[in-house]
């Protein structure tokens, strides 16, 4: 009996603690709603910008965050970077919800799925947060602005031009892509196919292989492609993981110098293969510039300088002036080609 009443008291204390926590809820809830009305309309001073890449620990996104951080700090704002350890859409949704509660000024996100994070982003926008997508877009109605690294046509053209130049405009080629459902890769590949058909009738695209952006898988797929197609003249890999793995395989095989490897890569990953002659030329935008431009775009939205409508223009520091195009998209520019002459000027 005595024991029971003591335990009863404990239970009571526990219940009290829970209701205390719940009351805590109510009060800070009203506080945060107060905040959101203050920063709801155009022209806020809440220059806290958070980058949400596809995943953390990815050198490409490290570079874009470096650019974003420098830009936001130059503007006197607060920069932050958060993100999931693995690139999944549901994990990104949790982070978007967190940022909505924290009432940041803007979220700059590279989407793991164009649809899955939409509702969470729109909830954030309803709370007065500006949303900029970069690198990989969401559906257009879920964000204020998309900062595109280069348009699909430009990226596809650069890669088609490079492979045509490197194999003498005729012969078999293959594409080594990332995962089969990577939105941007698939758009580029479709564009490359139609450009090849229209302008390079003597080039035959024999296969699109998928390396899942995994180094070992891409390496194995390269080996398989070269075995399946003995007359293969070139491999185009529109992903940084794929091109590096393909170059690594070719550099140590008898195909070195005979099979061209090109596509989209980073200078640091490709330097060795450009120097040893495996790779002549490859392309990419500068991810640091992409981060910088995204950060300036986010700041311009927060300050109310632009609304994200077509024709709006804003300054992006050293990068110059940019104008919002169709579909609320800002274009960084044409891809940049890296070769033996310029590769040592870059470090990312």
């Amino acid at each position, binding site marked *: 009996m005595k*024991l029971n009443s003591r335990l009863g008291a404990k239970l009571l204390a526990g219940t009290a603690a829970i209701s205390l926590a719940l009351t805590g809820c109510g009060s800070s809830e009203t506080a945060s709603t107060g905040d959101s009305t203050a920063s709801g309309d155009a022209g806020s001073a809440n220059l806290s910008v958070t980058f949400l890449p596809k995943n953390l620990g990815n050198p490409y996104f490290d570079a874009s965050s470096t650019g974003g951080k420098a830009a936001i700090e130059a503007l006197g704002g607060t920069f932050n970077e958060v993100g999931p350890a693995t690139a999944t859409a549901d994990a990104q949704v*949790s982070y978007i919800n967190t940022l909505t509660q924290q009432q940041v000024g803007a979220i700059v996100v590279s989407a793991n799925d164009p649809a899955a994070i939409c509702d969470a982003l729109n909830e954030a926008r309803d709370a007065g947060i500006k949303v900029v997508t970069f690198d990989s877009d969401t559906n257009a109605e879920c964000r204020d602005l998309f900062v595109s690294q280069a348009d699909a046509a430009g990226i596809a053209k650069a890669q088609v031009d490079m492979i045509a130049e490197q194999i003498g405009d005729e012969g078999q080629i293959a594409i080594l892509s990332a995962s089969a459902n990577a939105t941007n890769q698939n758009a580029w590949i479709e564009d490359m196919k139609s450009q090849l058909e229209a302008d390079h009738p003597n080039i035959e695209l024999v296969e699109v292989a998928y390396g899942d952006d995994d180094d070992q898988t891409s390496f194995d797929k390269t080996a398989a492609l070269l075995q399946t197609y003995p007359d293969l003249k070139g491999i185009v890999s529109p992903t940084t993981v794929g091109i590096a793995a393909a170059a690594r395989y070719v550099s140590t095989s008898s195909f070195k110098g005979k099979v061209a490897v090109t596509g989209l890569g980073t200078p640091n990953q490709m330097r060795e293969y450009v120097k040893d002659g495996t790779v002549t030329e490859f392309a990419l935008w500068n991810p640091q510039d992409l981060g910088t431009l995204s950060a300036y775009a986010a700041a311009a939205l927060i300050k109310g300088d632009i609304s994200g409508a077509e024709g709006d223009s804003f300054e992006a520091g050293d990068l110059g002036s940019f104008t919002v195009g169709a579909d609320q998209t800002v274009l960084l520019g044409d891809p940049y080609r890296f070769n033996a002459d310029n590769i040592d000027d870059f470090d990312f």
Partner: protein
Amino acid sequence: MSETTAPRTYKDFAQPIVRRLLLTRESAIIALLIVVLIGASLIVPSFASAATATYLMLDVATILLISLVMAPIMITGDIDLSVGSMVGLSSVVFGVAFQAGLPVPVGIVFALVVGAVGGLFNGWLITHIDLPALAVTIGTMALFRGIAVGLLGTTAVTGFPQEWTKLARAKIGDSPIPVIMILFVVLLIGAVWMLHFSKFGRGIFAIGLSKEAAAFSGVDVARTRLILFVLSGTIAALAGVYFTLRYGSARGDNATGLELQVIAAVVLGGVSVFGGRGALHGVIAGVFLIGALSSALRLANVTSDVINIITGVLLVASVIASSVLDWFKRQRARRALRSATQQPVTAG
């Protein structure tokens, strides 16, 4: 009590119910959950809010649903590693059905049937071919995921009717509680009855302690295990439908790695990895503990790697703590048994 008139039943040896409730692994986890909730409310800005509660419940809903069956399965000493892949597969089946123009409820039925059949396949291999659950479900984990990715390939199905996607995120009236929790509570009542109040449930615990002893005392071991795997596949499919509607995107790689989150929560909630012990209130507390902890850490701007480390350490610590506790309990039971055999009970 009545030693002279009637033989003692097992109930007479049990501890008082209040003491049983308070001195268990489950109550330790519930206490830890309360500590984390109160601590985070005090320390982490904007944790104590209705929005946190809503997001937390939406985030853990999938894990909660699946854990209702994972717990009984682990109590029998089995495991189901294929649940994450089944979420992906049912998501794809649901998406493909919707894409083919079938109404959403029909798609849900299709998904559930696929879940039940997948679970039946697991259960059949385990009970009739007599293969270990671990090996079978590692295999079907790859199999279900492979079919899922194969079926939908490069694409994701989106554009589900708004009334359904909204329902998946809707709240009950003005409360912060999502509608999905109604479904969870209904299934929870069923699961509690099945596990803790039915003959079937006593069989589950008996199997976990010793399959042979259970069989000799009249438990249909194979049938019990088979039913649990069918239930597991079905509830994973239900979770897959919810996942798809919540994120508005059906794709083959949905919920990758979810099985480990479910198992982690179930083990944290006091289910013995060797089978034979566990209770659903502990499991639910375990799910919410991991969810609340990562929610609080995200709001405190702790990076995802550190969040993973902290939850990992918590898990390992809880397993070690329970082993130590079990050892002490066994020692005490052995002493009690020794003294009991020295003073035999007068029966009859």
